[in-house]
Each structure stands twice: as C-alpha cells, then as structure tokens.
C-alpha cells in the first residue's frame, strides 16, 4: 500500500503543508507558547518531521523518541487538550490542501497511536 505521504504529494507538498500547519499552531494561543522559537526555520524543520511522520512518510522516530522529544513539554503541562488541538490543526491543514476525509481519518489514526508517548503516559492508561 502506498503511504498517505506519497498520495498527498511527498516532500514538495510537505513544504506547503508546513507553512499552513505552523501558521495555525502559531495563531493558536494555547499552543503558540510551546512553538515560539526565535529560529523559525529550525521549528519549521520539526513541523516537517511531524507531518512526515503522521502521513506515514520516511520518518525515523520510535515511540521512545516521541517520549523523549516531548518530555520537557509534558513537564511544562501539555495534556490531552493540547494534543487534540494539534490533531485538529493537522486535519484542518490537510483539508485546506484538498485531502479527502477518509485520508484525513487515516492520518488522525496515526497521530492517535502516539498519544500516550507524546503525553508521556503509561500505554495501559
């Protein structure tokens, strides 16, 4: 099965998606403080890694990596509400890019699969 990443358009489409997604996140006052890096290019590179991963593209992150990448954010208090907001902007971004609802649901499922890792919780919870 081809990945959504390829169906959506691969690396080129990702650049467009990063701009839209990052803008949504920065405009969301619940999330902006976590992403407010003076080096916007570096932050954008991480958004790209995020989008590549949730669309099933060539990303190289394990659940443990996700725990490590977000541990300092968990310490700062991110919870399910932040997670839902991120997934919401993700869906909104894909919709703007003309991705159909069935594919958006598949992306949502990939994101859902790392919820406990991102939020640093025991998978059994």
């Amino acid at each position, binding site marked *: 099965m081809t990945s959504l990443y390829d169906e959506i358009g691969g690396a080129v489409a990702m*650049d467009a998606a990063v*701009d839209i997604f990052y*803008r949504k996140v920065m405009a969301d006052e619940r999330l902006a403080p976590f992403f407010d890096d003076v080096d*916007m290019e570096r932050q954008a590179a991480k958004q790209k890694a995020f989008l590549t991963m949730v669309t099933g593209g060539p990303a190289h992150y394990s659940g443990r990596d996700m725990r490590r990448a977000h541990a300092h954010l968990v310490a700062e208090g991110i919870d399910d509400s932040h997670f839902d907001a991120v997934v919401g902007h993700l869906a909104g971004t894909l919709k703007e890019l003309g991705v159909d609802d069935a594919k958006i649901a598949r992306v949502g499922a990939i994101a859902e699969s790392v919820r406990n890792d991102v939020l640093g919780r025991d998978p059994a919870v």
Partner: protein
Amino acid sequence: MTGRIRRGNLDLALEPGETALEGLLRGGVAVPSSCRAGACQACMLRAVAGDPGAAAQQGLAPALREQGWFLSCMARPTGELVIEEGPPPAIGATIAEVAPIGPAIVRVRLEPDEDLSYRPGQYVQLIQGDHVRAYSLASSPADGRALELHVRVHRLGRVSRWLAAAAPGTRVGLRGPAGTCFYTEGRPEQPMLLVGTGTGLAPLRAIVHDARRRGHTGPISLVHGARDPDGFYLVDELKGMSDGTGAFSYVRCAMSGETGGEIEVGDLAQVTQRLFPNLKGWRVFLCGSPDRVTALKKQSFLRGAGLKDISADAFLTAEMPPPPLRTPAARAT
C-alpha cells in the same frame, strides 16, 4: 564524550556546553568574534579533521563548508576537532570616502583590490586589526567595483567609531559575501515588502534598486523605522523613486513624534501590520535591529507570507560588555 580541540601545539578539552570559540578564548587563542550567534561569520575557523556539527556550518557558502570552514561560536563538537592555523582568506580594500549621511550614520565607500562577486543586499566581513564585523552592502556590482556600507556609529563601538574616523586611503580586509537577503528572479509580478530599522536600510535600498534593474513589475513597498523623526536618512533618494503610480511606496515610521504629518508614528511592527495586513503571496525582506526583525518575521509569516519568501538579516552586535579581546602575545604556543 565532550569535545576536544587541537590547534598547533594546543590540545584543549571543552567543558560541557562550551562552544569551540569559548574554549579557544579560554585557552588563550585569539579568535575574532562579534555576534556569537552564528549571524556575522566573524569567528570562522577551518577544521581539517573532525566534525564541527551542522549548526556551525549553517549559512556558510557551500564551497566554504566543503573546505571545512565553520562558525566557532556555534560549534559544540562531541569528538576531536583539528583546527588549521591562520585566518580565513580575505581580500584587501582601501577606504575611499567616509561621509556622514544621517544622525550617527556614516557612508563608507571601499575600493576592493579585486572585484567582489556579490548580490546587492548581501553582507561582507570587514577586518580591522583583530576585529571582524559584518556590514551589509548598499551598493550593486552594476555600479562598478566600489562597495558602499552604511555604518551606525555606536557610542562605545570599536569598529564603527574607528570607521567613522578613518582617513581616505586607510586599508582594511574583506571577506564574503554572505547572506540570503537579496532579490531572486523568477516572479517579477510578486508584491514585495521591505522593512528595516536604522542602517537596515542599507541592504534594503540595494535590493530595491536591484529588483528594478532586473525588471521587477510588482509593487514594492519600503518601510524604514527609526527611533525619532530626525533619525531617517536617504530620504530624498527614496522619495524620488516614487513616481505616483504606486509601483514603489516609501513609508517612514518613528517610535515617537508628532502624529498627523507625513511620518507614521508608532511601533514599527504595528504600523507595518496596519498598512500591510495581508502578505499572502508576498516576498518579504527584513533587516536591522534583532528584536524588530524577529517580531516582524513572525508577524509576516502569520499574515500569510511563506517561510521561504521571508529573508531576514538581524544586525546582531556583540553583547555588552563586549567579549574580552586576547592579543596575539597572550596566545598559548
């Protein structure tokens, strides 16, 4: 494993978190520096073995990267780094003229010994004795070999005050060019917004002239910010470029002063946002004061400009008090 640096007879273990620059200065090696944030390229060194890390090579021309040049203020090597003795290659230049063009701003004209291949808006590193500083190019190769800089004279600034007092005929060194703040061809109809504070006008002015020379047809808007209404310069030149068709607009914005005149009064980012509320599809250039550049960059992005369509040069200076300068005599050899 923490990093190690070898240079000549020096063999130095870096402390945790220490940059190569900090380590070398601690070890008594005179490495020039200014911004210590990867922006000015004053601290460039060459590694002949070992990996300085990707962050330390960001913004360097590919040819320099391939030869192992890196920015020591951004390098936190984890292994051993062997550094070559001697400074990076530079060309000589003669100061042809120093003229005041604004309040505490001088225009410096330089005659380099050989042609410098650059794009208007890029910057060079100017070398004066032990000091290296970045200055943006206000000139264009189309106007000849001479280079033009606009230098703000800082109250205690070492190089800016020296430049302001330099006599014609004085020699300096030059490296570069560097930076991505320049006009790129391919979308002549794209609207352009250029915002700068103080001498941030130098590269912006060069970019505007370059865009027009290369046949840009879209509207070009230049916003210049200054602390007070007397702080503007090149006003006649820029006013003279507007021909009433709206192809070029020039706005001055002062932080304080009387409202209602031809100068906008208020915070530069807010005024810019009010005048240019939607930047979707625009090309944006931002130069000058680091905090204004950072604020405007974020704002431009949120207002719709694509990240790849925003070019910015923050004029980072050395921190106050400035880093200690080691003389060559104090070098550990």
